[in-house]
């Protein structure tokens, strides 16, 4: 029997707000332990939560960026469970009345078709503290760092629309792009600002059964999600084939051993309306105002890039994969670079060079203005492409204008025919066999001869000019 998977995702995203969700403590979990705490996020007797307006707005923008419907009325509940990372015996979360419902993300499926994956709802909640267990020494101790306690999170719960690991991975990538566009979070699974859990069950292909699902946690990258789901599909299929019953429980992905391991039975915490946080009432005109703040989203931007700059859909989607790349590209164009050249240089030169140096595009020492100047010199034949690549590399270590670097390194292109004529003559006389090949109709030999002249010029000759000169000389 052939099986198919039914997968739904639960994604936690840490909002990049300046403060925590219910107090004014800085939202910097990585600082020295317990520095960013106050009577509210430590839940001393008598402290009361005060919902952050900024967090509500960031959460709302995120929802709108995912095509969700913001609810005019939402509310916080207490999700009750005891654990030392939880300073009050419950987590404030929106269980009964979430901030937004509905929504979707469109992905490109394996066969190239567009698949719409639906979101069930998005709710706000607070993060918990971080536990550190020190097991060495005579008495093992557990230390609690409350810096993260109360950090603002949203949880995105999808419909069980996914059938393959590929769809789950594409969903996460597209979701990440869209959330970065609205500016609510960096969404890094590696840094923990985006965390994804999956619910997965299997059923005979072509049926609409909803079977017992298993929850998978601890997947720290998009690739882990794909690997863990693929593993779990095969684990469950094998189990069902051998007549084993699937029970509802939680499993942890072990990335090193590439396997999922059972953790615990699934525990459903009761959720009680919180009496100290008033209902959140959002007026329709507030929603309109937020909607007006949304930037051009990636799908619309890619469509525009295709129309406006004549790029292919793949190229446009690539440039639109994060807002910084898209805006860098458009900056180059504003500085007079041709669209195709800009696309080519950003994707094949600039971004790899940044990656190599571990730099973010937003902190690139090669600004669009400087790169545009370099590309202008290339377009004007003042330098050749090889020299331009060398200059780009030098620009990472120098603030000097590209013109100065070219001059200082003597990388200016030689287009002077008198100067080049001597080199052309010398190469022709040294490579008579290649000349004979060319004359007998082997066009390839031209490339060889151009290469030889380039080499003789120390890489500075203008290949276009050489080609013209060679062609003229040989056709005589």
């Amino acid at each position: 029997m052939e099986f198919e998977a039914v997968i739904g995702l639960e994604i936690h995203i840490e909002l990049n707000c300046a403060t925590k969700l219910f107090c004014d403590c800085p939202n910097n979990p990585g600082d020295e332990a317990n520095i960013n705490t106050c009577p509210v996020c430590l839940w001393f007797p008598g402290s009361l939560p005060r919902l952050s307006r900024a967090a509500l707005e960031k959460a709302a923008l995120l929802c709108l960026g995912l095509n969700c419907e913001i609810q005019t009325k939402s509310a916080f509940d207490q999700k009750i469970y005891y654990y030392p990372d939880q300073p009050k015996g419950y987590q404030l979360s929106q269980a009964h009345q979430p901030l937004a419902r509905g929504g979707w993300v469109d992905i490109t499926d394996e066969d190239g078709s567009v698949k719409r994956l639906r979101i069930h709802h998005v709710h706000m909640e607070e993060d918990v503290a971080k536990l550190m267990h020190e097991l060495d020494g005579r008495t093992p101790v557990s230390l609690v760092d409350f810096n993260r306690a109360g950090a603002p999170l949203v949880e995105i719960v999808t419909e069980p629309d996914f059938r393959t690991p590929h769809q789950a991975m594409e969903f996460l990538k597209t979701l990440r792009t869209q959330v970065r566009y609205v500016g609510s979070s960096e969404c890094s699974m590696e840094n923990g600002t985006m965390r994804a859990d999956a619910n997965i069950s299997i059923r005979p292909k072509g049926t609409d059964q909803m079977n017992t699902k298993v929850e998978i946690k601890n997947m720290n990258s998009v690739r882990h999600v794909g690997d863990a789901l693929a593993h779990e599909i095969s684990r469950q299929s094998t189990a069902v084939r051998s007549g084993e019953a699937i029970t509802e429980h939680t499993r942890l992905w072990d990335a090193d051993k590439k396997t999922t391991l059972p953790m615990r039975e699934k525990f459903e915490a009761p959720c009680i309306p919180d009496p100290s946080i008033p209902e959140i009432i959002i007026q329709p005109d507030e929603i309109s105002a937020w909607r007006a703040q949304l930037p051009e989203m990636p799908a619309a931007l890619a469509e525009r890039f295709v129309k406006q700059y004549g790029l292919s859909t793949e190229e446009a989607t690539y440039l639109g994969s994060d807002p910084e790349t898209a805006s860098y590209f458009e900056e180059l164009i504003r500085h007079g670079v041709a669209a195709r050249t800009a696309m080519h240089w950003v994707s094949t030169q600039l971004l790899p060079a940044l990656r190599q140096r571990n730099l973010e595009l937003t902190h690139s020492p090669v600004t669009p203005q400087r790169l545009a100047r370099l590309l202008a010199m290339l377009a004007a034949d003042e330098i050749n492409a090889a020299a331009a690549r060398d200059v780009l590399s030098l620009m990472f270590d120098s603030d000097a204008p590209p013109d100065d670097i070219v001059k200082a390194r003597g990388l200016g292109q030689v287009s002077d025919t008198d100067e080049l004529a001597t080199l052309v003559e010398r190469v022709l006389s040294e490579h008579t066999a290649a000349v004979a090949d060319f004359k007998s109709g082997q066009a390839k030999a031209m490339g060889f001869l151009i290469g030889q002249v380039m080499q003789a010029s120390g890489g500075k000759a203008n290949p276009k000019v050489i080609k013209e000169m060679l062609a003229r000389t040989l056709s005589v």
Partner: protein
Amino acid sequence: MDSVFSYQNPDPSGSDGTLSGLKIAVQPTIGIAGWPAVAGSEALAGYSSPDDATVIERLKQNGAVLAGMTHANELGLGINGKSTAGSPTGAKTTDAELLLDLAGEARLSAARNNLWGFKPSWGLVPRSGIAGLVPSMEACGILANDPGTIGTVLKVIAGPDERDFSQPQLEYREVSIESIKPEQFTLGIIEEATTLLSGDTRDAFHQQMSELKKAGFQIRTLSWPGYGLCLVVHRLVGSVEASSAAGRYDSVRFGRRAPGAKNWNEMYLQSRGAFFGTLVKSYLIQGAYFQFERYDAYENACRIRARLLKVAARLFTQTDALVLPAQKPVDAGTLDRLYEQCKFTAYANVVGLPAMYVPPASAGNHGFELAAAQGACGRVIALGEYLHRLRAGGKA
């Protein structure tokens, strides 16, 4: 003195302001920076408050003298032999007292000490800095020897506070005593409350009503269907909220920790088991039962409460204020005793009304209770002042 105060201010000096010279004692559920704030609980032994509660900030700013802290029943729940709320003011050592009214504690402490006791409308007085237990029902109450002093203190502590996000949009509006004209003032009696009375308490209540009638008030009997459910709703919703609210007393960040636990779960169980008293423990366990096992019953209680709120609001279209019976408190050692104790007070916590205990004109008799619509604290206090002046033989 030791038996009345759990802590006495070593420097009881006030400053200039509208409360200058007024001596006030507070319950140890109310935080005062640097003072012990143990809320009557072993679980909080050694804890002192990092900040002033908002009500304390306001008392200090207005020149009041903070005399000390009384003894409280654990986490302010109910009153029994341990609680000394009302004693210092009854002995005229202090002029007024603040204490949490979760189910009627302020009014019951007043009844026990022959004082006037007031529970404000829910949310009018900020709760920030007060270790509460039943957030949707509790309010910071005021005790004094006369309703005028209660009004003076209320005026200072009431009003919006940016630390208490839960407050409804309420401002304290004073009502002048001159505006109380008995012949134009209706006092409603709730039929469902008076039927609960028997024997001498019933006789006393009727006696008081006839005196009010003699004073010229329009007395009107009203029906509040569901009044009897207030107690059940309080007991269920109150225990659920308490179970959550007490979750922060986990011995991790403050409070006492029982030694010898092998893991965190044991640490919780042993610490809470060792340091919470029986009454609080049974309340929390009851609340946890409804949270984990009978959420449907909790939801029903919330629905009934919403209906009680509607009906209560409608009552005040037919009357200016309510007059309700009051009883001398029994000691609250068990949950059943606690709810026997607050049989005639819990309604005001369930529907958030301002309510005032009016002591009997002569000691030994029964007092009664006044209540008005949500937000109408000024009316209750003015009415109290009118009655107080009437008794003193003054012309109202």
